[in-house]
C-alpha cells in the first residue's frame, strides 16, 4: 500500500461509514422502534405463543443484533480486500 493512496483510503472510510449507518438504522429499528415505541401496536399480532412486540423486546432484537455484527464483519472483510488493506 503506497503512501500516496489517501484518496483510496478516504473512499474506504466513506464506504465503512455507510455500512455502519445502515447497520445502526436496523439496530435502532428492531430495539428502540419495534421493542419500545410501537410495542403495544405490534402486540396485536402473534407469532406462536408470543405477542409480536413482546417477542421483539424479549428475543427478536437480540437475535437481530447477533446477525448485524455477523453481516458487518462479512462486509468489512470484503471491503478490506477491495481496497487491498486486509491483514494477512
Amino acid at each position, binding site marked *: 500500500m503506497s503512501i500516496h493512496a489517501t484518496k483510496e483510503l478516504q473512499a474506504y472510510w466513506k464506504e465503512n461509514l455507510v455500512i455502519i449507518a445502515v447497520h445502526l438504522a436496523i439496530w435502532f429499528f428492531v430495539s428502540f422502534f419495534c421493542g*419500545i415505541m410501537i410495542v403495544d401496536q405490534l402486540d396485536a399480532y402473534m407469532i406462536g405463543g408470543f405477542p409480536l412486540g413482546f417477542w421483539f423486546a424479549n428475543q427478536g432484537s437480540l437475535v437481530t443484533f447477533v446477525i448485524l455484527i455477523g453481516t458487518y464483519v462479512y462486509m468489512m472483510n470484503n471491503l478490506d480486500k477491495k481496497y487491498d488493506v486486509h491483514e494477512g
Partner: protein
Amino acid sequence: MSILVWTWILTGLSFSLYIYIAYATRAKSTGDFYAAEQSVPPILNGMATGADWMSAASFISMAGLISFMGRDGSFYLMGWTGGYVLLAMLFGPYLRKYGKFTIPQFMGDRYYSNTVRVLALICAIFVSFTYVAGQMRGVGVVFSRFMGVSINMGVIIGMALVFFYATLGGMKGITYTQVAQYCVLITAYLIPAIFISMQLTGNPIPQLGYGSAINAAGAEMLQDPATQGKYLLDVLNGIQKDMGFGAYTSGARPRIDVWFITMSLMIGTAGLPHILIRFFTVPKMRDARSSAGWALLFIALLYTTAPAIAVFARTNFIKSIHNVEYSKAPSWFKNWEKTKLVGWKDKNGDGIMQIAKGAWDKPDTKNEVKIDQDIMVLANPEIAKLPNWVVGLIGAGGLAAALSTAAGLLLVISAAISHDLMKGIVKPDMSEKEELIWARAAAGVAVCIAGLFGIYPPGFVAQVVAFAFGLAAASFFPCILMGIFNKKANKEGALAGMAVGIIFVAAYIIYFKFVNPAFNNKDHWWFGISPEGIGTVGAALNFIVMYVVGKFTPEPPQEIQDLVGSLRYPGKLVVPPSAGH
C-alpha cells in the same frame, strides 16, 4: 448424593481448573499482563468477553428481576446486548489499531492531555470498584447458600482465588480462566432451562419453549389439567390478572423511561473499560470485529434464556405456592425459608399461602408470601424437581460468573494505577520489570479492597450501579466516539464535555438517590426519565458541549489528526502525505 456434596464436587473441580490455567498462562511481560501479548484468538476472546460481562447479577438476579417486571424487564435484555453492536462497529477495531494497553492511555494520547488521562483513570477506577463490590458479595452469597459456609468465609475464598490468578497471570491468565468460566456458567444456566422447557412444553429450546403450548406432562406438573394445550404465556397472563397484577406481556413503565434506560445501558456497556480493553488482546483489527460478534453470540445465549427462565419460574412458583396450605408446602419452600429468600406470614390466619400485590410484611396488603428475586434462578431446579447434580451446577455457575467479572474489573484498576498513574505520569522512566511489580501490587491491593467491600457491603452499592453505567455513558462513550470519528475533536472540547456530562449525571443521581429519595418517582423526574436512564441525557450533553467548545478553540495538532486517520485503516500505513509537507 446430596445437593451439598454435588456442589462441593463441581465447585472444587472448576476451581482446580482455574488454578491450573492461571499457572500455565502466567504473565512474563507488561504486554502479557495488560493485553495477553495481543495473541488471543477471536472466538476465545469472545468467550472471555462474555464471562467478563456476565456478572453475579446477570447470572443470579436477572431472570428473577425480569419475572417480576414482565415486559418492562426487556430493557435489561436489549440494553445489555445492544451495546455490542456499537462496540463492533464504533470502537473495537479502532482501539485495536491504536494497539496500546488502557482506555485512559488512549484518551490521554488522543486528546494530547494528561489531565484527560487522569480524569479518565479516576472514572475507570470509580466505575470498576462500584461494579466489583457487588461481585465479591455475590461470591460470598453463593458460598453461603449452597455450601454451608459463612458469607465472609466465602468472600475470603473468592479473594484468595482471584488474588492468585490476577496477580500471577494478569490479562493472559484472566483471559484463559474466563474462557473456562464462560463454559461453566453457560452450562449451569442452560441445563436447568432446557430440562424445565422440556417438562412444561416438550420443546427442548427454552427460547421457543416459553412461547409454546403446555403439554400433558406440563399440565400435570402445574397441577392444573385445564392448562393443557394452552400457550404458556396466555396461562401466565391469566394467572397474573386473577391475582391483581397486570398481564405479564404488557408493560407498566412509561415508554420514554424504558427508551432512555435502554439507551443508557447500551452506550454505558460500550463505554465500560473492562469490556473495551478486551479488544486490545486480539491480533488484528478484523479479529476485533469478529470477537465482538462472538462475544455477543455467547452473551445472547444467556440473555435470551433468561426471559424464558423468568416465565417458567414464575408460573411454577405461583402454581406451587399460591392458595396452597402451608402444611402441604413443597419441601424446597421450607428449605429456602431458612435463607430468608422466601417467607410466609399468615395475615388472615387461614393457614393458606396467598400471593398478591404489595409488600408481604406490611399489614395493609393481602400478600403473605415473600419472594426474593434471586430465588427464581437459585431454587428453580429444585422447584422443577431436577436431579441434585443440576442443582449443584448452579453454585459453580454463579461463582464462575462472579469471579470472572471481578477479575476483569480488578485488571482495569491495576492497569490504571501501574500504567497510567505510575508509568504514565509519576515515573515515566520506570523499567518494565518495575512496572510489572507495580501492576501485580496494585492488583493485589485492589483484590483486598474489593474483598472488604464484599465483607462490609456499603449500603449504597445498589444505588451506585446506575451510577457506573451513567458515568460510563456520559464520560467514556462520547469522548472515545468523537476521538475516532471526528479528527477535529480537541482537548478543550473533551475536557468541557466530560466535565458537564459527569457533573450532570452525578447531580441527578445523587439528588434522587441520596438527597431526596422520596422524590424518586416519575412525577418528579425530568420528562419522566429515571436516574437509571439519565446517562443518555448526560452523553447527549457531552456531545453538544464537546462540539461547541471545539468550534471556538484551536484544532488538535496535525500529528493527532494523523493518528486518528491511521486508526481508521488496517495495515501499516500510518502517515498521510500532508504530515510530510
